[in-house]
C-alpha cells in the first residue's frame, strides 16, 4: 500500500520589496518600512496564514549593487537576516525561519550559537541558508584576498558547516542535570570538545549554548553548478536549485539524490486573470528600464498554471519549491491566497501545520547526537 503523495513543500524567499528591482514602486509596496520590524512580521504572518513550510531571508555583508553600485533607483540597505528572523520568531507559530549567513567572513562559533538561539526563541523552527562570500564583501573585513580561489571557499564552507553542526551536538540533550546531591549543574561528561582542525580554522568547543530544540536546525544552500552541488550534497539537508524546465529538474535531482530535500527556486509573478501577470512584469521591466533576468526560472501566469507546473516538476523528483515573489505584497498574497488554495483543492498541500518544528514539517527526524554514547 502506498500513501498518497501529500504534494510539494512550499517556502517563500523574502528580500526587500520583492525580487524585481522595480517592485518597490508598486502601489501596494511599503519601501519606507523595509527597516522596520512591523514589515517583516507582516510578511511572515502572511506566509504563515497559508501554512507554508518556511520563509528565507536574503542577506549579504555588503550593500546591494543591482543596476550599478551608484544606482539610486533600487532598494539599498538591509538589516541582519538572523536578527530579523529572531525578531519575528516570538510573534509567529508553525512557520520555519531560515536566515542567510555568509560563511567566508563570519565565525562558525558565533553562527552556531546564533542559529541554536533562533531555534530556542522559535521553539524549534530555525534553519539557516549558508552561502560563500562575494568579492565586494571582502574589503569590509580586510582580512582576506578577494582574488582567492572561489572553489576553495566551498571547501571552507563545508568545514564551516561541519563545525556548526558539531557545536550543536557538543552538548548532549541531557547534559544539564541540576544534581543537588553533588552540586553539579551539568554532567561534564556529556559536554564535548569538538576539536575541529581544518585548513582555514580550528575550533575547540564546546558551544556556550546547549543543544537546540531540533538537535540540528535545518541547513540549506542554493546551488547552481557542480562545486556548489558537491557542497550541498555533503553539508546540507536541503538544496535550492534552479532548473530551467522539467528535464533539467530531473537531471539536478539525480545529481543530488542523496539529499532529503531538493527545492526548485522560481521567481513568480501571479495574477488570477490570464495574461495579467505577464503584462505586470512588462510594466515593471519598463519602470526598471530593462528586462528582468534571474538565475532562477521566471514564471508568469495564474495560480492554477503555477500549480500545474509545480506538480509536474514535483513529479520529476523535486520535493518542494522556494518561491521568490516578484513583488511584495502582490505576489506573496497571490501565493498564500491563490496558489495555496489551488493546491489544496487538488489535495496537494496541507491545510494547517501538522508539526511543531521545521524538521517535523519537512518529515525529518530529530537526529541522534553524534557524541552520545548511551
Amino acid at each position: 500500500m502506498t500513501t498518497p503523495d501529500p504534494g510539494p513543500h512550499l517556502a517563500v524567499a523574502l528580500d526587500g520589496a520583492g525580487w524585481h528591482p522595480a517592485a518597490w514602486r508598486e502601489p501596494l509596496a511599503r519601501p519606507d518600512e523595509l527597516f522596520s520590524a512591523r514589515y517583516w512580521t507582516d510578511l511572515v504572518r502572511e506566509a504563515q496564514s497559508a501554512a507554508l513550510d518556511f520563509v528565507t531571508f536574503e542577506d549579504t555583508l555588503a550593500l546591494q549593487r543591482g543596476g550599478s553600485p551608484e544606482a539610486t533607483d533600487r532598494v539599498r540597505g538591509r538589516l541582519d537576516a538572523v536578527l530579523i528572523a529572531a525578531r519575528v520568531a516570538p510573534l509567529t507559530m508553525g512557520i520555519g525561519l531560515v536566515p542567510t549567513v555568509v560563511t567566508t567572513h563570519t565565525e562558525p562559533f558565533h553562527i552556531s550559537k546564533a542559529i541554536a538561539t533562533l531555534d530556542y526563541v522559535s521553539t524549534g523552527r530555525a534553519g539557516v541558508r549558508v552561502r560563500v562570500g562575494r568579492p565586494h564583501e571582502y574589503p569590509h573585513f580586510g582580512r582576506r584576498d578577494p582574488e582567492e580561489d572561489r572553489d576553495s571557499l566551498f571547501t571552507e564552507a563545508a568545514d564551516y558547516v561541519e563545525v556548526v553542526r558539531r557545536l550543536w551536538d557538543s552538548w548532549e540533550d541531557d547534559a544539564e542535570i541540576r544534581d543537588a546531591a553533588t552540586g553539579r549543574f551539568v554532567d561534564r561528561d556529556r559536554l564535548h570538545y569538538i576539536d575541529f582542525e581544518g585548513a582555514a580554522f580550528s575550533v575547540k568547543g564546546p558551544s556556550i549554548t546547549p543543544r537546540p530544540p531540533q538537535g540540528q536546525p535545518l541547513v540549506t544552500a542554493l546551488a547552481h553548478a557542480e562545486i556548489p552541488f558537491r557542497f550541498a550534497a555533503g553539508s546540507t539537508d536541503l538544496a535550492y536549485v534552479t532548473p530551467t524546465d522539467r528535464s533539467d529538474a530531473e537531471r539536478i535531482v539525480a545529481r543530488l539524490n542523496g539529499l532529503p530535500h531538493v527545492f526548485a527556486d522560481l521567481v513568480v509573478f501571479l495574477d488570477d486573470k490570464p495574461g495579467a501577470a505577464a503584462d505586470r512584469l512588462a510594466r515593471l521591466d519598463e519602470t526598471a528600464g530593462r528586462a528582468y533576468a534571474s538565475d532562477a526560472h521566471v514564471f508568469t501566469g495564474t495560480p492554477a498554471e503555477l500549480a500545474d507546473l509545480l506538480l509536474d516538476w514535483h513529479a520529476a523528483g523535486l520535493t518542494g519549491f522556494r518561491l521568490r515573489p516578484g513583488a511584495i505584497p502582490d505576489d506573496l498574497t497571490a501565493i498564500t491566497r491563490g496558489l495555496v488554495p489551488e493546491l489544496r483543492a487538488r489535495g496537494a498541500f496541507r491545510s494547517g501545520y501538522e508539526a511543531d518544528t521545521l524538521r517535523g514539517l519537512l518529515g525529518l527526524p530529530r537526529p541522534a547526537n553524534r557524541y552520545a554514547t548511551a
Partner: protein
Amino acid sequence: MTVTPEGKPRKQIHLAAHFPGVNNTTVWSDPAAGSHIDFRSFVHLAQTAERAKFDLFFLAEGLRLREQGGEIYDLDVVGRPDTFTVLAALAAVTDRLGLAGTINSTFNEPYEVARQFASLDHLSDGRAAWNVVTSWDAFTGENFRRGGFLPQEQRYSRAETFLRTTWELFDSWKGDEVVADKDTGTFLSDPAAGTFAHRSEHFDISGRFTVPRSPQGRPVILQAGDSDEGREFAAATADAIFSRHGTLEAGQAFYADVKGRLAKYGRQDHQLKVLPAATFVLGDTDADAAEKADVVRKQQVSPATAIKFLEQLWNTDLSTHDPDGPLPAFDPVVGENTVAKGRASVRMHRDPVATAHEWRALAEAKGLTSRELIIEVTGRQNFIGSAETIATRIDDLVQADASDGFILVPHVTPGGLDEFADTVVPLLQERGVFRAEYTGTTLREHLGLDQP
C-alpha cells in the same frame, strides 16, 4: 522638583535588570529556579523589568565554557544563548525596555558587529545597548578563526579602535538618505550613502555599510573595565559604566574618579552614568531579610564551591582541603593563574599572597572556617532588608553620588526580580526619584543621554 537635605535637586535613579549569570551568585538549586536557556525565562525577566519601568535589560556573555583544574566547571549554571539573537527576540515582547548585550571586541569584526547593533536598534525602535568587553586570552581564542592573536597589552587599543570604527560605520549614513519616492523612482537621495574607509593598526577596511541610520544613531555604550586603562576607556567612550563598587565609600571614590576623567574628553557628568552591579535580598522585615540572606549565601557558596574559590586564589589543586577547616597554611602559587580559565575574576587577585594573608587574618580574627571565609569575602549582598530599607538605601547611595543607579542581579531565574518590582520600585516612585511611566521611547531618552 524635590531636593536633598543639602539643597541639591534629587537625582533620578536608573535601574537595570541583569539576567542571572553563569557564576555562583545564581542559585540554580532553589526550588523556584527555572531554565537558563528557555526563551520564556528571558521573557519573564524582561517583562518584569519593563513593568517596573526599568531603563534596561542586561545580558552578559562569555565565549568559552569555564574550566578549573583542566575540566569544565560544573558547579554553576553552564550555558547561555547568543546575545544578539535573544535580544532581537526580546524586542518583540517588550516596547520600551533598553536591550543591552555584551559583545567582545576581540573575537568579532567591526563591520559585522556594527550591522548587528544597527539592526537591533531598528528592530527595537531605538533600544539597543552594547557592553563592550575586551579579552585576549588564547583559551577563548581556541574557538575562533584567529586564535589567541591579540597581545594582552593591545586589548584596550583594539577595543577602542574597534568601537570608534563601528561609529564610523554608523555615521556613514546620515539618516535622510532613504526617501523611497515611488513617483520619482528615487530610493536613495545619496548614491554614495554608507561609504566608509578606515585604516589603522587594527583594521584596514573600506566599502559601504548596509544599514541606514538607526533610531539612536548608534547603540548606547556600556563599559565594565575597572583598571586605570579600563576607566579611561569608559571616560572617553562610554555612556554608562557597569562597576562593582556598590558601597558608599567605594562607590563615591569610583564615581568621583570616573566622572573626573570626563572633562579631558570634552564630556560632561551626565554623559556617563555610573551603574554598579548589585545583589539584593528582600524580606517582610529587615530581620527576616537578614535571615534569608544568610540562607542564600550558604546556597551560593557550597562546600565544593568554597574549595573552588580557594583554588582560584591559591592557584593549585585543593580538592582534598577541608572546607570546614581553616584556610590552607601555605601561600598561593605565584605566577600565571593556570587553575581557572575563562574567568575574569581571577585577574582581580593582583597580589594573591597578600590577599591570602588578609583572608587568613580575617578568618583568625572572626574564627571562620574556609567556607565561612569565602562567604564573608565574596557573598555579601549589596541590599538586604525590607522594601522600605532597600528603597531608602538605594536612594541614599544615588543622592550621595555613590552611583547613578544600579544594575540589579537577581539570584533566581526567572522570578528573582518580581518582588523588587512589586515592592521596592513603587517606593522609589513615591519618593519621586524613579519614573512612574516611560517618558521617552529610546534607551538614550531613558538615560538622559544626548543623540549622537
